[in-house]
């Protein structure tokens, strides 16, 4: 038996184990049978090991360039560098599905091993839901997308991998994104378990929050990596294109961000329970859509490297069950989770509810912009895309209002009223917004209203966070700075970092949007082009042979226009991948905190000249710096959570009592 068949066998074992995991603990939880409930963690662990073996077998086939495996023959090539042989494992539909499953299994195993103090029935139910999800996707893999299928006649060499995907960014972008998408399955499992048992309480939220946070951090980084990849690899100079696949990753992020905030309200105030459950279902449903809509062949996109409508039927079936059944549950059991509305709009939870409303509206905007063209096509047959103008006009204002609220939330108190620091914080933020607005108008001619708003928001949010930090850490007669730092909860620190990440992100987006320069020219060797205070000389254009491609490379020399000082030498390329006969554009980028020099080589020859696109993009790297800060903030908040000691009995009793009371009342 070859390793590949062993991997296939391991995948089948994982399927069987997942079926056990989805049924037995659920039955055990209903019967209060500890023995049966404990089968959950055991099954989850073994299934994770089995899928790890399956994945390892597939990676090995790719490393060995075993072209008797159909997947390897179709997606790899012996001339490819090792790292892309490995990343080629998930550069295709079957392999990326297997990676998705592996990550799902690992989350399940971590959940099984951790959370010792977690109520056993809750854990059993969560693992069961997790098992149902993995059973569905293992069935999808085994019955429609078997990665281990062999070829009767092994070809001499493989058909290669899409060269656009042959990139270090792409080697880590999908795993990171999947880590985020799949992490939301745990929040989903919490929600479904909560609907089954009716036990959605503060303890439930406390256990769920770190999982949401972990998934959110990974999703944030995954999206940022994808955007960074698009920026340097696609050679269009942009960082976000409102492409259906980008939107598909943004929607779960927006929903997860809302969930992150609403779960705080459940934990601290015991409110917004049914809403939080719904958000958790929504966030994971959207990430299922995000992962699999690309595969179904429903939408046109630059990313659709693995589309196949025939599989779409299976995907749609999984989606129907995975989303439809919990929503039926929600319609039926959700009303039980209702609490007597008890909050004042002028409170911390009031601000968080506003945050949730805005984020859900933003999600709906993206959803509409992504699927409206599809709906329209079904009705009228016309094929359109809505594109950036739609999103600029709708998404940006909503996010702008959200940024305004971000200053209010942290300085409001729970329940009702404000904290003493509200006045100074709002005042500082307002003054800073006014100053940055005036500076912006003075610096930029004819600034658009949206740009002015962005500039003012940057000042508003930066000063708002700064004032809050000062108010909370300022040395007072009783406490020194160090003492106040010691007393500072880690999630507050995390929040500051993450919110400040948005300031940095906005700086990058606005800097690039307002001040970027662009030159599209046809140049011959020796020509000088001027851009953003630089003199760019096209020295020469030459041909070069890469490991599996042929390249046309331009050598550009950047000098300061005023002083003539040498700045850099950039070498943009056009590559022809011989095995796949595909052409890619390799932009040359010199990234600096102040701004990026970005050069792209187009067609041409020495006689008529080459088309060159040169950009200067001020502050653009801050976009990804800001996103990284957001993720860091999430990590800080997550690691800072107090280790959960075993729940003391009184707490559990309280929960049960509350439930009994609620039932009695109803």
């Amino acid at each position, binding site marked *: 038996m070859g390793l590949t068949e062993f991997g296939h066998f391991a995948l089948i074992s994982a399927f069987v184990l997942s079926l056990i995991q989805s049924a037995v603990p659920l039955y055990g939880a209903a019967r209060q049978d500890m023995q049966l409930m404990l089968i959950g963690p055991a099954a989850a662990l073994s299934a994770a090991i089995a899928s790890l073996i399956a994945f390892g077998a597939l990676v090995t086939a790719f490393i060995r360039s075993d072209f008797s495996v159909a997947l390897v023959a179709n997606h790899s090539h012996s001339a490819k560098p090792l790292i892309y042989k490995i990343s080629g494992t998930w550069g295709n539909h079957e392999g990326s599905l297997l990676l998705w499953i592996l990550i799902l299994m690992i989350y399940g195993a971590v959940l099984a091993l951790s959370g010792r103090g977690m109520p056993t029935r809750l854990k059993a139910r969560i693992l069961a839901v997790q098992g149902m999800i993995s059973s569905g996707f293992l069935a999808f893999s085994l019955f429609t997308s078997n990665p281990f299928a062999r070829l009767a006649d092994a070809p001499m060499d493989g058909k290669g991998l899409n060269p656009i995907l042959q990139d270090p960014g792409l080697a880590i972008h999908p795993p990171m994104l999947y880590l985020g998408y799949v992490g939301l399955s745990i929040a989903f499992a919490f929600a479904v378990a909560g609907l089954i048992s009716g036990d959605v309480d503060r303890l439930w939220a406390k256990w769920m929050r770190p999982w949401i946070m972990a998934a959110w951090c990974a999703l944030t980084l995954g999206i940022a990596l994808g955007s960074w990849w698009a920026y340097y690899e696609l050679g269009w100079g942009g960082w976000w294109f409102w492409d259906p696949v980008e939107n598909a990753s943004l929607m779960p992020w927006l929903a997860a961000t809302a969930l992150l905030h609403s779960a705080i309200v459940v934990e601290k105030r015991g409110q917004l329970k049914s809403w939080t459950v*719904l958000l958790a279902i929504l966030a994971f449903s959207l990430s299922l859509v995000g992962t699999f809509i690309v595969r179904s062949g429903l939408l*046109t996109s630059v990313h659709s490297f693995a589309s196949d409508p025939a599989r779409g039927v299976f995907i749609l079936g999984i*989606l129907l069950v995975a989303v439809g059944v919990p929503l039926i549950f929600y319609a039926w059991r959700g009303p039980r989770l*209702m609490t007597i509305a008890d909050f004042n709009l002028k409170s911390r939870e009031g601000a968080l509810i506003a945050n949730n409303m805005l984020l859900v509206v933003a999600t709906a905007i993206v959803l509409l912009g992504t699927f409206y063209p599809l709906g329209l096509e079904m009705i009228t047959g016309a094929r359109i895309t809505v594109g950036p103008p739609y999103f600029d006009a709708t998404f940006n204002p909503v996010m702008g209002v959200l940024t305004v609220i971000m200053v209010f939330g942290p300085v409001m108190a729970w329940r009702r009223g404000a904290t003493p620091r509200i006045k100074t914080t709002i005042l500082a933020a307002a003054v800073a917004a006014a100053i940055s607005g005036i500076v912006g108008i003075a610096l930029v001619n004819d600034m658009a209203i949206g740009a002015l708003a962005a500039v003012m928001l940057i000042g508003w949010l930066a000063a708002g966070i700064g004032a809050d930090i000062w108010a909370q850490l300022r040395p007072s007669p009783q406490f020194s700075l160090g003492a106040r730092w010691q007393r500072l909860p880690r999630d507050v620190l995390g929040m500051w970092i993450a919110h400040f990440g948005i300031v940095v992100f906005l700086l990058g987006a606005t800097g690039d949007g307002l001040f970027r320069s662009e030159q599209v020219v046809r140049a011959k060797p020796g020509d000088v082009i001027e851009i953003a205070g630089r003199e760019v000389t096209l020295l020469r254009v030459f041909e070069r042979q890469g490991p599996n491609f042929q390249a046309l490379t331009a050598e550009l020399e950047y000098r300061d226009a005023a002083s003539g000082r040498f700045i850099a030498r950039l070498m943009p390329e056009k590559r022809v991948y011989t095995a796949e006969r595909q052409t890619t554009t390799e932009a040359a980028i010199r990234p600096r905190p102040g701004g990026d020099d970005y050069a792209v080589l187009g067609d041409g020859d020495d006689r008529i000249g080459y088309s060159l696109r040169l950009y200067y993009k001020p502050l653009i790297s801050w976009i990804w710096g800001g996103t990284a800060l957001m993720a860091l903030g999430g990590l800080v908040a997550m690691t800072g959570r107090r280790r959960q000691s075993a729940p003391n009995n009184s707490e559990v009793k309280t929960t049960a009592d509350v439930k009994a009371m609620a039932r009695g009342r*109803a």
Partner: protein
Amino acid sequence: MSRFRPSFFIPLIAFLGLAIIGGMALQSTLSGNRNPSQLPSVLIGKAAPDVALPLLQDRQAELALGNFQGQPLLVNFFASWCAPCRAEAPALEQLSEQITIIGIAYKDRRSDTTEFLQQYGNPFTAIGMDIDGRAGIVWGVYGVPETYLIDTAGRIQWRHAGPLTRDVITTQLLPQMAEMQ
């Protein structure tokens, strides 16, 4: 004990609405009415662009589609460096018995093109050299091979990106040609 609340059904109803649209889209994709990767050419029904190209055999002379007006034409973009072009060579050879085929060598060197034709046969009545790919841009060529069917009035009737497989020829090209006559 369980309270019934209509508002809790809203998410379910919204989801079912979306699922129905998705299902319809999938249905029409599967039935072949809709191909998301097939972008219609804007040139269909319009006059074929006449870009002056040097001929393969004679640098001084230019390929002019106008010279062939009055008869249906097949314009095939190909290149010696393109593997599917080799695959479709026999099909073009057969088609050349029924229709005049004009070849446009896309981003190719004269010597390579000549060698390619010697090896895989020359079904073309005339061959233009689109060395810098400008004609490709004007025609809106997606990639090689790509084939355009032009009617007697010089208008583009049909376009196919990718190699002409037996399936494409029998289900699309031949019916189109029959319709024109």
